[in-house]
């Protein structure tokens, strides 16, 4: 049978001649039209099959849809549409070593101290420090001495004095510094705003159940409520260049987040900076947080956990500022597959009435999900100080042992603005 089905030699030769002629013909066609249009549609994997390539195609099409969405609002709606269980990250937490875990969730490197621009003395403000000092002392005395209050509720004694102190102090400082920094004149001050952020980081294999073996991204949500914040229409200038590399590392923790302990819930995925997208003041300047009774210093010292005081303050700073800067970036239309092209900078002051800590944050990357993070060498950077005492004691109507360094840092923070000539506010 093999012999009978073998073709005669002449026919085989003819076939070769035919293909040679065809090849020659095609060559001339190609020389005439340099880019031939494909004759058949591209070979794509299925969209609805139960395969990895189909899953990849669905993901790609979703990313194309988000890329094509007009404006930040539509992109945020598409990315936060589907509710799934997510870890709720609380900025003010009682967990041990929370700052290292939060750094790994947000890909942040922590640098102790402040960057040079904010730590060095500003020339113009030296004269006014006296006036601002008296303003600050007056606000302190008002809350701690002059005002008569009822007996405070259990574990809410500090709240009674510190929240009105901040509420009085911040607008008065802003109005005193408006001539130096016209940006503050165009700013908006929010009281108890909601700041929310939702992001994906890392992957997890489902251990049990009908979805066993599936690989899911790990979702996080921060819902923060600073006591007050200043939003401005112009972005703060960058502290270091976008691709700048610093020696500090981002801690990588391989253990799953529930061991922190961190708990999962499912509800609306919110991304919010304090105002809606249409608001013109869409960039953040400074947040003021009240270090609540979870961060009580006396209790930590009594429990022999003195090192955890700074850990909790750092965790608060990193989480709150990451959420705020991330939400600002998403308002501008950046997301994990469309990484930020300029760094987003914000500042925060955390206080419990006596101790002040200053933090500033530069968001260099939003690409934290497992697919986007593989080729990403950027990391977010957080600078922060240790907590400093503002005053030693209040004796009667006199503030003793006032610390000018804290006041000067506060003034530098509020005077921070972009020095460019293109700024329309001057």
């Amino acid at each position: 049978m093999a012999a009978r089905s073998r073709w005669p030699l002449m026919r085989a030769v003819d076939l070769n001649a035919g293909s040679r002629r065809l090849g020659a013909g095609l060559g001339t066609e190609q020389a005439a039209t340099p880019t031939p249009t494909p004759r058949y549609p591209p070979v794509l994997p299925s969209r609805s099959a139960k395969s990895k390539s189909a899953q990849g195609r669905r993901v790609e099409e979703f990313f194309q849809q988000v890329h094509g969405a007009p404006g930040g609002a539509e992109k945020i709606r598409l990315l936060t549409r589907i509710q799934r269980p997510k870890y709720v990250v609380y900025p003010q937490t009682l967990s041990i070593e929370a700052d290292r875990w939060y750094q790994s969730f947000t890909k942040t490197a922590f640098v102790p101290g402040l960057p040079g621009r904010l730590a060095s003395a500003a020339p113009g403000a030296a004269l006014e420090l006296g006036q601002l000092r008296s303003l600050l002392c007056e606000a302190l005395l008002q809350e701690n001495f002059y005002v008569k209050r009822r007996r405070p509720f259990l574990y809410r004694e500090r709240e009674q004095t510190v929240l009105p102190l901040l509420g009085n102090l911040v607008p008065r400082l802003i109005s005193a510094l408006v001539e130096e920094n016209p940006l503050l004149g165009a700013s908006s001050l929010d009281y108890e705003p909601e700041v929310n952020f939702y992001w994906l980081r890392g992957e997890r294999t489902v251990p049990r159940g009908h979805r066993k073996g599936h690989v899911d991204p790990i979702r996080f949500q921060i819902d923060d409520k600073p006591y007050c914040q200043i939003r401005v229409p112009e972005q703060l200038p960058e502290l270091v260049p976008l691709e700048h590399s610093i020696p500090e590392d981002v801690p990588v923790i391989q253990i799953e987040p529930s061991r922190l302990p961190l708990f999962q819930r499912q509800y609306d995925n919110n991304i919010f900076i304090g105002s809606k997208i249409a608001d013109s003041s869409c960039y953040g300047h400074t947040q003021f947080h009240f270090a609540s009774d979870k961060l009580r210093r006396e209790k930590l010292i009594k429990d022999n956990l003195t090192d955890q005081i700074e850990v909790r303050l750092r965790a608060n700073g990193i989480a709150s500022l990451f959420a705020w800067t991330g939400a600002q970036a998403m308002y501008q239309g950046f997301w994990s597959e469309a990484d930020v092209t300029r760094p987003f900078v914000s500042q925060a002051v955390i206080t419990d009435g006596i101790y002040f800590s200053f933090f500033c944050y530069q968001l260099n990357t939003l690409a934290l999900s497992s697919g986007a993070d593989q080729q990403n060498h950027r990391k977010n950077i957080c600078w922060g100080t240790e907590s400093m005492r503002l005053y030693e004691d209040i004796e009667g109507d006199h503030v003793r042992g006032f610390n000018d360094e804290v006041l000067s840092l506060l003034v530098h923070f509020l005077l921070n603005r972009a020095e460019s000539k293109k700024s329309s506010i001057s």
Partner: protein
Amino acid sequence: MLHLEHNKSVNIHSYPLYQLGNPQLRIFRTNFFMTLVRPGREQPENTVQFRIPMEMTKFDVKNYLQSIYSVPVAAVRTRIQYCTNKKRNHKNQRVKRPDYKAAYVQLAQGQTFTFPDIFPQKDQTPEPGSVEEIQNKFLEDEKQKQKADPRRGGVTDWFGL
């Protein structure tokens, strides 16, 4: 006076009642026994896992470790593990596996703990010249004889000459 019950553990019903003005209750020899266990799921380095009696609380665990063993404890979390009542014995009666309480203790001052390897793998190679080695060699030779000729390339005996 402490009245110990049949299960021989000090529980809330046997502590004397506190009345205003009483001195701080101090217990010098508890009947609690804690078992350090290997965690089933991976835990952070500063976390140690224990099985504790049902009557113990987080504060009892903390005081126990700090007073008796001088271990600095930052935080304690507990949970109760319910074990199955579904298994049945040869008489078809349900057999309960006892419940237990687990405690996760986080150590303070940056201390870490990893559960040691209690059953290390022993080196399985027998000594040269011993009986086991000759026996193993004999068994390996027998297995080698049972296998097909490798030159046939996996083709079975059904084919061929």
